[in-house]
């Protein structure tokens, strides 16, 4: 499977990169880990005249905590480096757990978190959890930078809110407050390295009386983009989360998703699995929230 020829550009500074992006415009594609882009090139879905390799850009691979306490993941950090990082394992363990469910070790060695988000594939695992954790991305360009919530990054099938000339530089994940819990559940019955039939993430934060004061739910595999289950969230916000209540609320996801039947399941099956895995994710996040703090006396 040979590739169509292209020029290969390797900027070593952001300024040089922005200049090349401006010069080549839509004729050029950015290359990070290449695991998604190479598929597009091989299948002829993209035929760029030039590839701009981002991997020689300095300062885009960090894994650290910012002054505001948020985890900062450089766009070029690979899935594997993030899942291995002691900082992530200790303070954002749900993130490391989720990354271990992505593809195979080999692909995780290559694939970057920035590439994952910019690919904009609704079946990918990181987006639902990043939605639930209220993460944001820092986007840089010739004219400056902007912070964009991940909730708003995905605009359509393989489309993101990044504008021409913009580069995703960093993902920021807020710290987990006391008495909160989060989890991502991947339902991939065919094989471990497959994409999810449905993926569901939940974040919950409890008040002293055990009421849920903050809750966000993210889903993969059920719409043209990764989605928040806002109706379900609204039905659970401020409530004491009993099993029957969660069951009733999860059914509301019906109106918020539009799955397509494929090799991983029919549309109807995915609808049912979305409800089921939302319920399970909420239950597990609740369990973790309870275990994390001292709990009511």
């Amino acid at each position: 499977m040979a590739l169509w020829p292209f020029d290969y550009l390797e900027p070593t500074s952001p300024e040089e990169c922005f200049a090349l992006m401006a010069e080549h415009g839509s004729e050029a594609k950015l290359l990070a880990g290449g695991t998604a882009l190479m598929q597009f090139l091989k299948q002829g879905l993209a035929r760029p005249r030039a590839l701009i390799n981002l991997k020689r850009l300095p300062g885009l691979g960090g894994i650290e905590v910012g002054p505001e306490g948020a985890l900062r993941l450089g766009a070029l950090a690979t899935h594997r480096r993030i899942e291995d990082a002691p900082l992530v394992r200790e303070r954002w363990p749900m993130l490391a757990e989720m990354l271990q469910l992505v593809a195979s070790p080999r692909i995780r060695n290559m694939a970057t978190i920035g590439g994952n988000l910019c690919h904009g594939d609704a079946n990918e695992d990181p987006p639902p959890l990043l939605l639930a954790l209220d993460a944001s991305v820092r986007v840089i360009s010739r004219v400056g930078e902007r912070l964009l919530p991940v909730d708003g990054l995905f605009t359509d099938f393989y489309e993101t809110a990044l504008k021409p000339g913009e580069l995703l530089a960093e993902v920021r994940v807020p710290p987990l407050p006391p008495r909160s819990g989060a989890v991502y559940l991947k339902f991939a019955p065919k094989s471990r390295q497959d994409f999810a039939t449905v993926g569901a993430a939940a974040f919950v934060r409890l008040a002293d009386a055990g009421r849920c004061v903050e809750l966000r739910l993210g889903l993969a595999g059920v719409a043209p983009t990764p989605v928040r289950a806002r109706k379900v969230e609204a039905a659970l916000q401020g409530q004491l989360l009993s099993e029957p209540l969660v069951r009733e609320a999860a059914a509301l996801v019906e109106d918020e998703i539009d799955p397509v039947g494929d090799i991983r399941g029919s549309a109807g099956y995915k609808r049912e699995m979305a409800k089921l895995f939302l319920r399970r994710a909420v239950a597990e996040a609740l369990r973790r929230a309870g275990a994390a703090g001292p709990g009511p006396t």
Partner: protein
Amino acid sequence: MSPRQKRQLSLEVNGEPYELLVEPHWLLVDVLRDQLHLTGTKIGCGIGVCGACTVLVDGQAVSSCLALAVDAHGKAVTTIEGLAREGRLHPIQQAFIACGGFQCGFCTPGMIMGAKELLDRNPAPTEEEIRAGLSGNLCRCTGYVKIIESVQVAVRLLQEEMAGEAGAPVSPGPGRHAAVGSGQGGAR
């Protein structure tokens, strides 16, 4: 469209330095196979799924079917041909032979390179960890049971090799492959 320039590619393959001229769109797997004639690395799916093309780049397993050769500039690549030492097969290779860890052999180079990375990271994996570590390496022949066994035996051979190097007594190690372990693992 400007004629595309070949680019200088400096890399190390199996410990040997190479200076090559490559076109930007050439894949690492093709350069290994067609330029360097290292045909142990196979091409199965070409899309990152099967693992037949697995090589190590700076010690990390990657799909060489998804990697551009130019991207390996300045790096150290290890292929299946690079595992044997002084004519002696690597303990993982020995284990695959002893356990019948392959039939047609097409998946084997990738499987062994995947196992190499796995054991470099985790010298004593559980069966579950072996399964997870090799989850992206597909085999159409064996049904995987013998592959998992091979990796388990490789773990023991590597431990024995280390113990042998340290001058410690080599444990016989129970199980049906004990003869393999004590027969080859301790000898240098």
